[in-house]
């Protein structure tokens, strides 16, 4: 039976487990194991605490034990030392740096901040450099010139890494200020790559156009036909207000200034108005693109009484219906608007206005 278990490696496994547990248990009080166990104990107690203030204070203590504990372990334990040495470089300070930054700029602030990433490399470099300033004795002093030169280069490399993190977060803030850029192809960029090219998001032009069409309908539906015709003549002036109203309904971000709303009425017996939302921001080919939506504006003769009731009850009308208009209504009929689906994005310059 024992032979069978040994053959399976189960005994070896249990012996390994026993040895590992033995290694993890502190032999003396001044050992890394003691510090890590203090930390584990503090986390446990923090979990039991009711109020969040107490939790914060106890977990603060837990971090204070954990960071030097693990730093010590990485210097002392051969197995850990081999794991954190990559290409002949002992990376323990950078692992400790992760813990320090998570503690200072993540745990204390209550959220994962940009600072914890940006300051990681310089903080780790300082941790790596500190032992070089301690001389046997122990006394403190500047290291010898060759060591100084290496420390300067190491610190500058880490500042450069920090700049790359800052660049990443700068591009993220641009993308959140100009989210329509996420619809674009970045293959020509000398700076960024997209890790998942299939995950493109649609630009916001469609949203703007839909809001604009709603406002457009609300303005015109039920309006006396003669007024509608007048309104369509000066549509260019009216669009400024519609653009402002449509954009006011979206999240307020800098990108909104790069969208232009345009409209043109194609004349005929009944009118066809084309609404365009034009992107004036950066694109891969530099020409921009636009979305288009066609709205048919028709005269509906119908009985004025039937037409008037929903008209008078309609909320959100911009202009109150004056009684003086009523005769006109009976003569010319009222306006009906039917908007089609949004087309686009259509790349290239938007067609010029009439």
């Amino acid at each position, binding site marked *: 039976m024992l032979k069978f278990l040994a053959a399976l490696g189960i005994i070896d496994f249990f012996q390994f487990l026993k040895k590992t547990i033995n290694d993890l248990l502190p032999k003396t009080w001044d050992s890394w194991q003691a510090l890590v166990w203090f930390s584990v104990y503090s986390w446990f107690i923090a979990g039991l605490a009711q109020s969040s203030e107490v939790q914060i204070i106890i977990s603060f203590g837990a971090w204070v034990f954990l960071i030097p504990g693990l730093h010590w372990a990485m210097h002392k334990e051969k197995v850990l030392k081999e794991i954190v040495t990559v290409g002949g470089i002992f990376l323990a300070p950078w692992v400790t740096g992760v813990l320090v930054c998570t503690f200072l700029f993540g745990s204390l602030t209550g959220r994962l901040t940009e600072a914890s990433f940006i300051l990681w490399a310089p903080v780790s470099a300082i941790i790596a450099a500190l032992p070089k300033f301690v001389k046997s004795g122990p006394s403190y002093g500047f290291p010898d010139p060759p060591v*100084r030169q290496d420390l300067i280069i190491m610190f500058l490399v880490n500042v450069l890494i920090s700049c790359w993190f800052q660049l990443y977060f700068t591009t993220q803030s641009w993308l959140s200020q100009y989210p329509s850029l996420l619809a674009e192809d970045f293959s020509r960029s*000398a700076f*960024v790559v997209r890790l998942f090219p299939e995950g493109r998001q649609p630009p916001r032009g469609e949203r703007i156009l839909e809001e604009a069409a709603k406002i457009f309908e609300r303005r015109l539906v039920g309006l006396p036909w003669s007024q509608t015709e007048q309104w369509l003549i000066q549509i260019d002036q009216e669009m400024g207000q519609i653009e402002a109203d449509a954009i006011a309904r979206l999240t307020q971000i*800098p990108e909104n200034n790069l969208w232009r709303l345009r409209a043109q009425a194609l004349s005929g017996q009944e009118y066809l108005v084309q609404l365009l939302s034009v992107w004036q921001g950066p694109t891969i080919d530099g020409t921009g693109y636009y979305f288009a939506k066609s709205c048919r504006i028709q005269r509906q003769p119908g009985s004025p009484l039937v037409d008037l009731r929903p008209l008078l009850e309609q909320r959100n009308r911009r202009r109150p219906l004056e009684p003086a208009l009523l005769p006109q209504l009976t003569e010319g009929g009222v306006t009906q608007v039917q908007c089609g689906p949004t087309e686009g994005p259509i790349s290239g310059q938007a067609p010029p206005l009439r």
Partner: protein
Amino acid sequence: MFASLFAEARFSDVVPLRAIAFQVLYLLVAIAIESFVLRQYLALEHKVAVRYAATLNLLATCVGWLIFFATEPFLPPAAKTQVISFVFFEQFVPNLWVESLSPIVIFLSFLIFLGTFLLKWQGLNYLEILLGKAPSQNVTDPLEEGKYRGWKNQTQGIQVNPRFNATFVANALSFTAILGLLFLRMTKLYPLFQ
């Protein structure tokens, strides 16, 4: 620059890996060229020259990034749009600023060249002080200088400030090489560098 430092970090799959790759390439090229020039001009050991060149170029790169991050939030929206367009699409948007862009770019390039040169020159002076080397060779006794002025100017004119000359030549050569690489990227060999 510091306002967003303690904001919650945002992530997306758009990562500046190309910027990092190109930066490493340009740094290696610049360090190789500049270490050669510094070794020739300042009679340094090979290893020392490489370390000097690495220090100076890393310093210039970091200072450059920091200036960019510090000025970027204060750019007017139209200029910011141009920067974004350049970073994401490597071209400019036809907006108000596009007319004045080439003089701005030329002026900025000149400023960057001058700035990196001054930074490297002063950086080299401070680096040698930090490393405990002879603080500076270019400070000569004023009396002595007066005495031998005529003779010195004729025979040793170029040697008066070796660090000034060395960093200037080194900077000019590495800029030329990097511009050449950028030019290659823009022209026929574009797919190679993608």
